[in-house]
């Protein structure tokens, strides 16, 4: 406390009073490393927030892409069905991560110099760039598959519903290939029932992954009855790893011996 005498005179020797006080209290300047550590911790928080945002972006892209497989083949007659395909959990996490990134950057030494809109744009841009790169490397698929198999709580939180792939009226079905023919194969659906699948189009089959027995696939097409037997005419077939695998890795029937590889 500054003494009354000083307050009354209001002028000299504040410096002396301050220096005396510093000595009395035994104060000394905090070491430089204290400020370095603080700065690095804050930047570390920025890094973690960006990483979480990027992973959320990867999973949003991955799940969005796998859902698009359905969306492209299903008419917009069932909006609720389409609504369930949106990866809300990851979108929410992405928003939280972006908010936290902005907050953490603001806490850095010079973070105040950037306006909030620039920081949000930067955080979104970085998350998309890193997230898209990670998606290209298959990180999103790996994480999603891991969470689906290892974390029972994850499934109810996401749009993973095997029932979605049991909707032949909507033109989608999934299961395991049991017998592979030349232009047909037998599919054991997720509920155990076997159906015959006829490949009528090789749409989206850009990669030469071949169908084989025991392979899990998801199929888009139309269901018909031919000769009293249910036949599913497929327009697109893809490997089905839990959620379904990336779009660009299609599956195709082995070409007949006389058919040249395109």
């Amino acid at each position, binding site marked *: 406390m500054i003494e009354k005498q000083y307050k009354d005179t209001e002028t000299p020797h*504040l410096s002396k009073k301050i220096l005396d*006080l510093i000595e009395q209290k035994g104060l*000394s300047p*905090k*070491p430089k490393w*204290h400020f370095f550590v603080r700065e690095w911790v804050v930047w570390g928080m920025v890094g973690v927030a960006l990483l979480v945002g990027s992973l959320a972006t990867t999973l949003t892209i991955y799940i969005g892409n796998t859902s698009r497989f359905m969306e492209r083949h299903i008419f917009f007659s069932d909006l609720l069905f389409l609504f369930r395909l949106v990866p809300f959990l990851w979108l929410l996490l992405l928003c939280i991560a972006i908010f936290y990134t902005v907050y953490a950057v603001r806490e850095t*030494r010079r973070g*105040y110099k950037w*306006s909030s809109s620039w920081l949000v744009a930067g955080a979104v841009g970085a998350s998309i760039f890193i997230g898209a790169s990670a998606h290209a490397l298959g990180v999103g698929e790996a994480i999603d598959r891991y969470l689906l198999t290892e974390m029972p709580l994850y499934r109810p939180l996401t749009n993973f519903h095997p029932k979605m792939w049991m909707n032949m009226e909507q033109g989608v079905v999934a299961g395991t290939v049991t017998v592979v023919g030349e232009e047909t194969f037998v599919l054991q659906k997720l509920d155990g029932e076997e159906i015959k699948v006829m490949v009528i189009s090789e749409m989206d089959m850009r990669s030469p992954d071949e169908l084989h027995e025991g392979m899990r696939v998801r199929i888009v097409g139309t269901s018909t009855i031919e000769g009293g037997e249910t036949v599913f005419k497929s327009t697109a077939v893809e490997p089905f790893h839990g959620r379904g695998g990336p779009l660009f890795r299609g599956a195709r029937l082995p070409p007949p011996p006389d058919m040249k590889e395109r």
Partner: protein
Amino acid sequence: MIRVSTSREAFGCIVDRYEEKLLRYLRRIMPGLGEDAYDVLQEVFIKTYVNVKGFDTTLSFSSWIYRIAHNEAVNWLRKKKVRPLTTELGEDDFQTFAESLEVSHGTHEQALTKDAVMRTLSQMPEKYYTVLVLHFLEGKSYEEISDILTTPSGTVATLIHRAKKQFSTIHEKHHD
């Protein structure tokens, strides 16, 4: 500055150099502070001494110590749960404000008194009042205000523009 200020004696020079400026600034942004101003000022210098090695050398030392003073003032107001309701202006400050804020002298020439300016300033939000004080009375540039208030300089420009506009509006309203 950092190297010098870590010795206690040299720090005394810093206190001597900024004592008057900071005391004046604290009284401007916290009118009615009275003798508490010295306690706040003392805390400002103690914090400056303790944190001196964290000073960002890309800033001017003046901006940095003003930032500490500003934060200390805000903390004091928060602790006491008060807001500066009365604005005290010296004759010089009044003249500076009257000229800088471009209040119309035409019809309200009689009304443009020190009391009127003080009353108008008292009704302005704290953030507007603070930028006006820093810019017009303390003579700080947008960049310096940005460093003191840790706000982007674009935001400072917007705040000053809005503060001037609001000053005119409140002032005009008083005389309608």
